[in-house]
């Protein structure tokens, strides 16, 4: 496992940077990460070896049927392709054996029953969560692409999906912009980037990689590098789950939606500053916030404007750099001292 990774990465560095000191611009880092992701995915596919067949009992419209698929290769998306185009486009999550929610692009490992879930199933709780999580993921990707090359963008993290908070968020470190307040025009630009990314209808790919490879992929992002060991430890098999949209790779537990065209109406509504405590290693982060609706949801513009106004307020989710303080612009040093 380890050997090919080292070989790959060293050869890649040879091509990109002949110098011994590692320095990567944001763009180069993205390319490199996506390249490593593709190589690892290819390697894992080749490692499957002899192809074994599994039986997947499909339940749902048009009728229940049994599909014979390939173990560790076929995904629920492949099953949907055997049904109709409608299934491939509208299915968000797969439900295996009536209990496990499975990504559409994650290979199946066992004989199972399969149900495909879209946004209008009778209990869309998990589907909604996957949608909100994916919205955060794509927000990170679109923030990465939106800035000029001179502005370093370091993605920090996004918390678990909380739909009732009214906005999905991504906390991002912009070290070269100490005091940035986005204008309305800049927010529009971010939203436009978002829409462009979602209109491409790109699949959200999933891959489980070892801790070493994950560290190698996120070598230039010190926030992610710090998070990776604990993520790997919390996972039962010691692996890190990565997701890739277009060429942007990110860490998340998942599950995610099937492809980006399932994100319909979307707006990036605001960017707030989060100030860290003196002990935290980062002084400040920017909290990017947005609101989105699934494709096909018709909501009148007045109702949607209410959602936008609400999403402009600072999301009360816990700040990663100041977890116990008020998530506000100012730190209350006196208060903390008084309580302590």
């Amino acid at each position, binding site marked *: 496992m380890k050997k090919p990774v080292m070989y790959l990465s060293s050869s890649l560095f040879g091509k990109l940077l002949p110098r011994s000191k590692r320095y990567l611009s944001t763009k180069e880092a993205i390319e490199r990460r996506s390249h490593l992701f593709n190589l690892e995915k290819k390697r894992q596919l080749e490692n499957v070896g002899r192809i074994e067949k599994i039986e997947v009992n499909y339940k749902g419209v048009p009728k229940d049927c049994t599909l014979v698929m390939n173990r560790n290769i076929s995904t629920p998306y492949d099953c949907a392709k055997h049904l109709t185009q409608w299934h491939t486009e509208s299915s968000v999550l797969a439900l295996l054996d009536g209990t496990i929610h499975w990504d559409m692009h994650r290979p199946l490992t066992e004989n199972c029953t399969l149900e495909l879930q879209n946004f*209008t199933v009778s209990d*869309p709780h998990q589907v*909604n969560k996957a949608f909100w999580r994916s919205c955060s993921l794509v927000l990170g990707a679109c923030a990465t692409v939106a800035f000029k090359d001179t502005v370093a963008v370091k993605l920090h993290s996004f918390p678990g999906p909380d*739909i009732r908070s009214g906005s999905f968020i991504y906390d991002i470190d912009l070290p070269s912009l100490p005091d940035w307040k986005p204008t309305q025009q800049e927010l529009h630009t971010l939203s436009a980037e978002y829409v462009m990314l979602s209109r491409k209808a790109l699949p959200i790919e999933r891959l489980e990689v070892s801790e070493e490879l994950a560290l190698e992929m996120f070598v230039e992002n010190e926030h992610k590098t710090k998070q990776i060991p604990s993520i790997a430890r919390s996972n039962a098999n010691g692996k890190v789950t990565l997701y890739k949209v277009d060429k942007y790779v990110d860490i998340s537990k998942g599950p995610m939606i099937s492809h980006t065209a399932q994100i319909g109406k979307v707006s990036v509504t605001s960017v707030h500053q989060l100030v860290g405590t003196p002990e935290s290693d980062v002084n400040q982060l920017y909290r990017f916030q947005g609101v989105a*609706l*699934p494709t096909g*949801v018709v909501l009148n513009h007045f109702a949607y404007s209410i959602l936008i106004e609400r999403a402009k307020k600072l999301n009360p989710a816990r700040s990663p750099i100041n977890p116990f303080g008020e998530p506000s612009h100012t730190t209350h040093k006196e208060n903390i001292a008084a309580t302590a």
Partner: protein
Amino acid sequence: MNQAEVTKLVSKLRIKIPPKHRKMSSPEGPEGRMNKLRKTVTGLFKYERIELNHNRADEARQYAERLIAEAINHGDCHKPTMEMADYWLLEKELVHKLFKVLVPRYENSNTAYTRMLRAPRPEYSYNTEKTVLELRGNPYPPLHNKQANNRQLLQNILLDAAKYEYRQTKYAEMAENIGKNEQEKPSV
């Protein structure tokens, strides 16, 4: 006046009837029109859900509704009703279906017996507004999504949360005002 009211002679249909019938041009004249409609009504009773042009669907629907209403009112021992069923249903086994299946199905219903929905129009076509005409209570999966009231849908969760927050701010404002009034009173 001893004359009976015309509206009470015929059972009132539960759908909207346009003031004029459609001529539905045919080389055979009015008889050709009726033949066309008989075919459509027969198809509707046979398949329970059909897709066709809007004009013909709307016209045939009125005759189908009337036929079912008569069958329910008079039953299968009434000669005129049986003749009418015999005329409209080209395939005779459908007469049995009408009295043995459809009459029990609709006996206690208080809505129309058929449903008409707009269907997507073929691209680059003109003057072909497509319609789906179906008998209610058919065994097929429903055509329209009635789940907009599901509170678990994402848009409903978002709107509910926004409503809740708005009310909370209003309550907070009211509570503040109450406090102020009480403070003012002693000073007055």
